[in-house]
């Protein structure tokens, strides 16, 4: 597989349309492009901001491993994953995954797979800052995310 894999870990926001365009430009063989954008929710006004810590170097390496695995497993034609770090306000983007494939199901499955593994394997941690100025503490990992990841294993 020689499908292009683009991974970036950055403080600044990303441009959805530009990422999709750069992945599909000049190609006539792509039939389906799926994008996933993860956004910071305001939790009904309680949340003031999220602070995202990451492990520089390993964050990029781990997301690349996940993307290459998805390319191989679903026959993707291209994939892009961008994860932000630093302070992120409600309504802002946190993460973007883009997948391209000849037919639609592989693009859906590939993006879904990348998100499930990114959630549980990519070294990022979220700390909450409440709208009232207090610290909400570190977000706890959810069992549901492990369950979502494990559905991709052969033994369910």
């Amino acid at each position: 597989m020689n499908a292009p894999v683009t991974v970036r870990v950055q403080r600044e926001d990303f441009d959805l349309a530009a990422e999709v365009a750069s992945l599909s430009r000049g190609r006539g063989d792509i039939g389906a492009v799926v994008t996933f954008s993860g956004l910071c929710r305001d939790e009904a006004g309680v949340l003031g901001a999220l602070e995202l810590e990451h492990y520089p170097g390993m964050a990029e390496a781990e997301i690349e491993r996940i993307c290459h695995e998805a390319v191989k497993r679903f026959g993707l034609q291209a994939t892009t994953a961008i994860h932000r770090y630093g302070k992120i306000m409600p309504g802002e983007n946190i993460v973007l995954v883009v997948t391209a494939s000849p037919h639609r199901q592989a693009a859906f499955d590939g993006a879904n797979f990348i998100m499930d593994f990114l959630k549980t394997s990519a070294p990022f941690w979220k700390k909450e800052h409440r709208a009232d100025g207090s610290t909400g503490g570190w977000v706890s990992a959810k069992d549901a995310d492990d369950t979502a990841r494990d559905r991709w294993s052969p033994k369910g």
Partner: protein
Amino acid sequence: MSTVSLVYFSWVRERIGRGEETLELPANVVTVADLLAHLKTLGEQYEAALEHQNVIRAAINQEHVDHGEPIAGAREIALFPPMTGG
């Protein structure tokens, strides 16, 4: 004795009170589990950070490893809580 770079993230970093350090390890520290046990002898802040040892995740040279993994030859060992990105 061997020298190893340790890096900490999230509440492991906060509780230990630093993000990175270089330590000399005794020869009987063979695995990640041995390392965690050794660190807990270094002071209250390490005990607090590593109290629930089974939830601590480790990476050697930026790849996830289990607690049973030997640390011989590690350039960089990272300790951190379960990840919450995405």
